[in-house]
């Protein structure tokens, strides 16, 4: 009896001791396995470089800025399978978009994601020193400016936090800064970049000094700061680093948007895509391919040169006819499908037949999918690089700044005529407003299909009357997504008239 009692007591004690001491809460303290956490990062050059790659990555999602910018303009119809296919794009095409628009939300979300990834590096810029850090930081600043510039173009005033990342709760505290402050912020990032970037990018696809100068010149131009825009753009032109493709031996202008002319001497800044990795609809922004290209493709196309796609972003008859006769750019820019079919025997399908948003018989040839062996979903992984800033664009922006700033019409005509000559057109000798109109017209012809038209019309005050359904000042910018207003708990006000 006694023995049992003692034995039991011992056991009870052992049990209690074991339970409440031996196995303490330390048991559950586990670090995630094989994962890097942010507190333990930015310790080496590699860490900064790898985070910079994450920022570059977001550039690929700006495909949507391009295609929707084009649809918003008078250049193209939304297209697609039906009048309700990607309804947000259809609404923008009709200029009937509201704050409830998932596709405008994408532009907000994705470009802010770029800002945020750049800010992640910037807020940790002092953590570790190494040789070449300034170059990496300068690229980071350029990219942040690039995304912020997109945001200010689309939405006007935006919240900003130059010192670092937005944190959960900031959306209810940080107000939308006025457009002028946003531009000052963009300019300061770009000035930092211009000063520190290498003349030649360290690798193909990264930012060069010329790219930063061109973007800064463009940012000045958007603010009508012609006196600053012209010299900045002139720096790019006089650098001797760039030329119009097709003006050198072995080049043919017709190939400018083919694979062989990617990262050519005309590219001041080019967004890189590839088809080697698969992608799916659940995360379009994750694709390494140019989603715009597959979406612009000819529906159910079967034939030479091109691959099939979803039939969005269809140039209008008016756009096709807007080219001067003999302009080589027309057939590089727009594919007349019926002519192509009778020439090659290709077949294709028609989707959306709505007169306002549907089939036109024309496709955006610059960014049509070419036959290649990209991975599935092949509609989402087309490898066509986007020529974000072309030398021709720089010449035309410089010409515009020179004329509108009353600085130098001779130089402006020279720049314009360089572009026209490449297009197989004669020289313009006009001056004053006629010259400016000529620059505007060539700007449309030169850059059609590349996403610039809507913003060019807005910044020059020509959108109303040109774009059907456009009302100024309401449509100068797009509405802030309704959810964003709600997330901010009304810290942010909706843009006027939306």
């Amino acid at each position, binding site marked *: 009896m006694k023995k049992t009692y003692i*034995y*039991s007591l011992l*056991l009870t004690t052992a*049990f209690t001791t*074991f*339970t409440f001491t031996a196995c303490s*809460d330390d048991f*559950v*303290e586990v670090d*995630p*396995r094989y*994962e*890097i*956490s*942010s507190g333990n990062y930015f310790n080496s050059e590699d860490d900064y*470089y790898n985070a910079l*790659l*994450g920022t570059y*990555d*977001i550039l690929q999602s700006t495909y949507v800025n391009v295609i929707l910018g084009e649809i918003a303009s008078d250049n193209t119809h939304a297209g697609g*399978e*039906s*009048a*309700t*296919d990607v*309804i947000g794009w259809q*609404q923008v095409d009709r200029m*009937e978009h509201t704050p*409830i628009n998932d596709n405008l939300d994408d532009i907000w*979300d*994705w470009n*802010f*994601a770029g*800002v945020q*990834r750049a800010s*992640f590096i910037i807020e940790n810029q002092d953590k570790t020193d190494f040789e070449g850090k300034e170059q990496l930081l300068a690229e980071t600043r350029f990219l942040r400016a690039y995304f912020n510039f997109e945001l200010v173009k689309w939405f006007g005033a935006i*919240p900003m936090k130059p010192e670092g990342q937005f944190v*959960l709760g900031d*959306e209810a505290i*940080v107000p939308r800064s006025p457009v002028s402050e946003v531009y000052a912020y963009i300019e300061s990032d770009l000035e930092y970049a211009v000063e520190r970037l290498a003349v030649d990018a360290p*690798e*193909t*696809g990264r930012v060069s000094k010329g790219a930063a100068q061109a973007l800064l010149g463009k940012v000045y131009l958007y603010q009508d700061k012609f006196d600053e825009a012209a010299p900045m753009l002139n720096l790019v032109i006089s650098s001797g680093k760039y030329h119009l493709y097709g003006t050198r031996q072995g080049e043919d202008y017709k190939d400018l948007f083919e694979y062989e002319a990617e990262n050519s001497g005309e590219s001041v800044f080019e967004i890189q895509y*590839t088809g080697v*990795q698969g992608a799916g609809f659940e995360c379009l*922004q994750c694709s390494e391919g140019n989603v715009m290209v597959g979406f612009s493709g000819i529906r159910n*196309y079967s034939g030479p040169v091109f691959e*099939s796609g979803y039939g969005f972003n269809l140039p209008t008859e008016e756009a096709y006819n807007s080219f001067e006769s003999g302009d080589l750019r027309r057939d590089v820019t727009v594919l007349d499908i019926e002519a192509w079919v009778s020439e090659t025997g290709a077949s294709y399908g028609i989707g*959306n*037949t*709505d007169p306002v948003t549907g089939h036109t018989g024309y496709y955006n040839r610059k960014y049509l999918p070419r036959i290649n062996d990209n991975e*599935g979903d*092949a*509609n989402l992984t087309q490898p066509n690089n986007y020529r974000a800033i072309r030398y021709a664009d720089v010449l035309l922006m410089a010409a515009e700044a020179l004329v509108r700033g009353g600085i130098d019409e001779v130089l402006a005509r020279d720049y314009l005529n360089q572009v026209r000559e490449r297009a197989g057109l004669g020289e313009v000798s006009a001056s004053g407003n006629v010259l400016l109109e000529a620059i505007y017209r060539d700007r449309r012809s030169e850059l059609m299909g590349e996403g610039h038209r809507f913003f060019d019309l807005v910044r020059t005050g020509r959108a109303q009357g040109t774009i059907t359904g456009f009302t100024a000042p309401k449509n100068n910018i797009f509405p802030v997504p309704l*959810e*964003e207003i*709600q*997330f*901010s*708990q009304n810290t942010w006000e909706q843009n006027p008239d939306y």
Partner: protein
Amino acid sequence: MSKALLLFFLLTASFSLGAQTFSVSGNVTDAENNMPLPQVNIVVKGTTKGVVTDFDGNYIIESVSTGDVLVFSYIGFSTREVVLGTQQTVNISLEPNYENLNEIVVVGYGSQVKKEVTGAVSSIGAKTIEDLKPLNAAQALQGTTSGINVTPQGGAPGAEANIRIRGIATNRNNAPLIILDGFQYEGGLNSINPEDIENITVLKDAQAAIYGTIAANGVVLVTTKSGRKNQKPKIQYDAYTGIQETTRKLPVLNATEYAVLLNESYANAGQALPFPDISNLGKGTNWQDEVFRQAPVTNHNLSITGGEEKIHYSLGASHLDQEGIIGGDKADFRRSTARISLNADISEKLSVSTKLFYSRVKRHNINSFSLGSVLFNAANIAPVIDPSTANLDNTISLGNEVVNPLTQIDNTFNEYVTNRLSGTIQATLKYIRNMELQARFGFNTSNSRNREFAPIYNYGAGKIYTRTDNMVTLNKINDNDYTFDLFNTYSNVLADHHKVTFMLGMTAYKQYGEGLGGTRTGVQANSWKFADFNTATGSGDNQTNNSYAYDLRRLSYFTRLQYAFKNKYLFSAMIRRDASTLFAPEHRVAYFPSASAGWVVSEEDFFNDTGAVNFLKLRASYGVLGNDRIPTFGYLSLLNGEATYVLGNDQSLVNGYALGRLANPGIKWEEAKKFDVGLDLQLFDNKIEIIADYYRNVRENLLISNIPVSGILGTGAPGAEGPIVNAGTVENQGLEFAVNYNQTFDNGFNISAGYNIATLHNKATRVNNGTGYYEGGAFSVGQPMPARMEVGKPLGYFYGYRTDGIFQTQDEVETHPSQKALGAEARPGDIRYVDVNGDGVIDAKDRTDLGNPIPKVTMGLNLSLQYKGFDFSAYSFANLGNDIVRNYERDQPNVNKMNYRLNRWTGPGTGNSVPRVTTEPTTNHVFSDFFVEDGSFARIQSITLGYTIPDSFIKKSGLEKFRIYTKVDNVHTFTRYSGYDPTASSGDPIGSGIDYGFYPVPRTYIIGVNLQF
């Protein structure tokens, strides 16, 4: 201690030697089947003298005298008393007792007699599983238990089932905790052989708080069969074979009807007719007939049980082989299981037991329940296309997703194999009187290997499945976990009336594992036969590889006090403390208390024993439970986002690092506050049992993962997502009522019937992310998400446009607010949408509540009859008041249509429900109540008829039992829903009830045998 007792017995015995005594022997049998009953307790009333029967049911009791009363008792049987005369042989049979009040109910870390249970518990026994013979044990809970809804994830072989206990409380994982023989089981009920199960008990209320932070969704306790002491070895073999077929084919148009409608739609848009001559089209291809086929299912099950005095055992093995009604062996399921259960008494104080389970599951899958799935294509492909047309280039254009479903099946190659070993080893030490220490170690280890092959194939230009290179994908996954329990139980009856059970214990749980996978292109001969990395010669960035590892832990302490006074007043209280890896150090620890009480009114003196009421208990419970089923390490900022760009002259991919999910250091567990009041009632000699409950569960601090937050936080980046935030509250409340009737008549006719009904009222009361809602699900292509969690609405309610008939005239169009913002100007024949907010235009702001996928009422009705050798059972259930979204019609002009389109509007006054057909742009395809249907249904789940051959015929063959039966599963479904199957659900709380062409649960005709040796 025991020596003292023995001495006492001996003394008593010697004193009684003086009286005239003799010994009595005999045999005890089960009155129902005349089988001997071992382990029956026999005591001489008023004394402590007693014996038990051996495994042949024999007993001998010494030193009794005339006039003594022998009391025979055995759990599950009515106790009988026999007054001794002078006879020396007493053979008696015991009647099975259906009152069940002495049944033992497992309640987690212990068990309770049913009449003392103070929580809301549902359970089913081996009999129900035997009757239903489900392929997946979870199905046995549907309709047989109140407040538990089981929906299959599809009719594909091996599809798991979603179990929802008392509604849907969280927007993420609503699956209950499964405890298999005491340890946490993450393998899914599908990997358990249903015939190994002795009992499934579901803890529905706060009583589950003993499982703390993992119990908020309810707890399903599965107890498997084990042997019994002193039992003759019993060998059982069961087998069945059957044929499965689809319960429904969609009423699509035949080729001529299709062409007529298509011509009309082209003509309406002023376009050339696609079929100028329809005279030779005939019926064309019936794609429904092409994809569905009859498919076999067979099952074998063998078990051996037995026991000696100190040791008992149970062994089992089974094999299930099921083919799919779509795809045949391209979509099959094979499950082999083996198990062993062994209990041994090492000494009077120490006993050990062990159970081991092995299962191997091998399956093949076809693409189902999504846009572009086989059934989706079978519903949409044009009937004018011949089944042999693999490349659709030269046929009518059907959009990029729709391909030939037969070719799609042919090109599907995959194999998924999971080997799992699970088990538990347990030691129980009764180290001192009234004290019991139990240590238990349970484990699961599973190894999965998946192989998929996508061949080079051209389905036609632009088709999303067209591939120009092939790809093999391999994955090897190892998952493990263990549960270590240590708990001590004190139980005693103090001062005759105070029954006390006190338990104190701890559990350590660890889940760990790793996965390795990759892809290669350039597989030799474009063939499944060579689908391995070894024979793949591709190069480039599609040669990928990836791996991961995880280690999650939880440490818990708990204690429970159960107290009963005179069996009348019952009380139970418990508290559990959990610490979990899932939360930041400052939020790591949580406490979960609960209490319950019961009053057995029928034990009161004032209660009239002789009335109709045999037993009445009132009970109530309240407690707080937790849920931590969320993605791991949500409190940390990890660099696991995607950071891939293209650099260099060779345009190659470069990978960096970027932040993944937005961190939220403040996350903590969800809290479920559960309240329940109920009553248990037995009437008319316990023939009728009634259980009724009212419950109200409030789930607070709902963990919403990937919660939408402002885009400025960067959550739109590749690989990034919204944080996990405790941001919601959901309420579920309802009534449950179950009545069971069981009676055996004198002629041996036995009837048992059960009916249960449960109501459910579900709504979100808080969504705290600024917008007040959270979206999910998908409808058609490129349309906004159709389902929402929103304050004041049921979880996952459907959100879209309300319709108001069809515009009959241009006049009507013009007097109605413009619908242009939806994509096109309306024309006569188009759907008229309601201007819900009355602002004079129809736009996104007019979207409103179109119904919800949660049934308001669920019920079950079950009947079983036995007479002589015949047995019959029928099980049925019904869901009422839920809605389903019809989402298997591709919004494309040339795809095939359902036959309701024949009733389209063709001119003023020709119809007010189905819009005109046209290839013109219309807004008739935006998500509206036109696509929402009543999903209510009643289903006859199973009907069985069996016959047991009388003993006299089989005795000589050595058989003890020989039963043959025939059974039909999924006999018929009564519903107005027009899709394949009204049980269609993805199981996602937000986005469930959206039907992309649900793989229907097959109807199965089975014949089977049960043999016992």
